[in-house]
């Protein structure tokens, strides 16, 4: 082998570089995106799953009769699809780390644990939004083509965004735990539903306000929308803060 001692140690004077959380965050985010683009594991499985959920919806509604106004439950159905899809997809993002013991390599590096959390959570948020970009139009196409939506589309999209932020953030934290258990996906579901309940309740309320307008919200649907959205955002803030504080313990255990 060629003499490469010079190359292996970079200098005799050791000046340590300054750590940059931003660089580390970018590294984790790019890595997750590159891996996902290459394997397409998460997105294809989540996309297919959401398609199956829509078929199951049709099954459930197939005998409801032509007078049935699906708009009444449209928001709920949409969020249901997102919830189920997330529960399936979130574990995937942590499995890579666990499989090859790469998580240890991450923990050995001088990265702050919360930065790992943000890197992974933002990655999961991006994947979730991509899947939603697929599911929402499809849902509309399958079930809502002659329905009248009371509010503008951007309000619906905003409620999806606020909810997705919470799902990605809290979901990443929970997946980091559930990936280390015997039950994995089952454990994720058991933790996910009760913990996310307030967020999902608020999001369904906000989205319903957009769909149904004054029909269901006699006191003014716009006000109902904003107050529900505000509460959802409040949940996001509180839970993300909690996740930020607790992640260190979770990932180090």
């Amino acid at each position, binding site marked *: 082998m060629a003499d490469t001692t010079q190359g292996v*140690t970079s200098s005799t004077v*050791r000046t340590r570089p300054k750590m940059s959380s931003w660089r580390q965050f970018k590294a984790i985010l790019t890595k997750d995106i590159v891996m996902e683009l290459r394997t397409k594991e998460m997105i294809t499985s989540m996309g297919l799953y959401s398609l199956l959920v829509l078929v199951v919806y049709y099954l459930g509604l197939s005998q409801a009769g032509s007078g049935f106004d699906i708009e009444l439950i449209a928001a709920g159905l949409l969020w249901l699809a997102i919830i189920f899809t997330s529960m399936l997809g979130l574990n995937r993002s942590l499995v890579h780390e666990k499989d*090859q013991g790469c998580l*240890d390599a991450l923990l050995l*590096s001088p990265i702050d644990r919360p930065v790992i959390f943000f890197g992974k959570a933002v990655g999961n948020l991006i994947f979730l939004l991509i899947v939603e970009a697929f599911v929402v139009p499809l849902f509309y196409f399958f079930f809502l083509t002659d329905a009248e939506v009371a509010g503008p589309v951007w309000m619906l999209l905003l409620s999806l965004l606020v909810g997705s932020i919470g799902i990605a953030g809290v979901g990443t934290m929970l997946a980091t735990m559930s990936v280390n258990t015997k039950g994995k996906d089952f454990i994720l579901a058991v933790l996910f539903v009760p913990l996310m309940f307030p967020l999902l309740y608020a999001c369904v309320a906000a989205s319903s306000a957009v769909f149904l307008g004054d029909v269901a919200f006699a006191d003014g649907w716009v006000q109902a929308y904003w107050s529900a959205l505000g509460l959802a955002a409040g949940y996001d803030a509180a839970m993300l803060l909690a996740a930020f504080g607790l992640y260190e313990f979770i990932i180090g255990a």
Partner: protein
Amino acid sequence: MTDANTTYAALEVRELSRTFGARKALDGVDLDLPRGAFLSIFGPNGAGKTTLLKILSTLSSPSKGEARVLGLDVVKEAVELRERVGFISHNPLLYPDLSAEENLTFFAELYCVENPAERVTELLRAVELDHRRLDLVSSFSRGMLQRLSIARALLHDPELIFLDEPYSGLDPHAMDILDELIAKIRHEHTFIMVSHDLQKGLELCSHALILAKGKVVLFADKELIDDDEFAATYRSTVGLGVS
């Protein structure tokens, strides 16, 4: 900052313990190791070797006692310490779906290495994997994985390197390569290795440590070890035949 101070020891461990409830993984370990040394840690399964390594490398924390690695406290100055240590394990700690170059670049970014692209190329050449830099790691052989893993560990130019059973699962050729690489960087670096391979461990080390049930059974400078006495102690604690 202890950078300018080059007189700190590699290890200063005092009464290190790790317990949880009734289970005692480490029980009052005391240790001193000078810089530039190569410490081989032996012991039966469950002796606490991995626990000790984990605490020293900041993957875990002690319940009692304290440890200073390179003059830095493993709990209070963990982040600074991580900048200075490298870890080579029997697991390659590499992402199979990324290429060799992508893997190294990722870790270079984590350590905030200056001129990452250059450094990555430098190391790929050093471990002779430059020609495979764009190939996915999933296509690598065990020996190649280990070489790349060494490159990963050295990216940030650590002062101290932990080795956790690095030879396990390697074929003789791969073992030779690992030997060569370690020999090359032997000067200026401190090594701490856990191994079940008594011969290899003794061959490489300057200091030897035997742990059993979380306690230190023997710790000595290799020069001062009586070979027979060591073999006897090893046999009785680890229970393996020694040729």
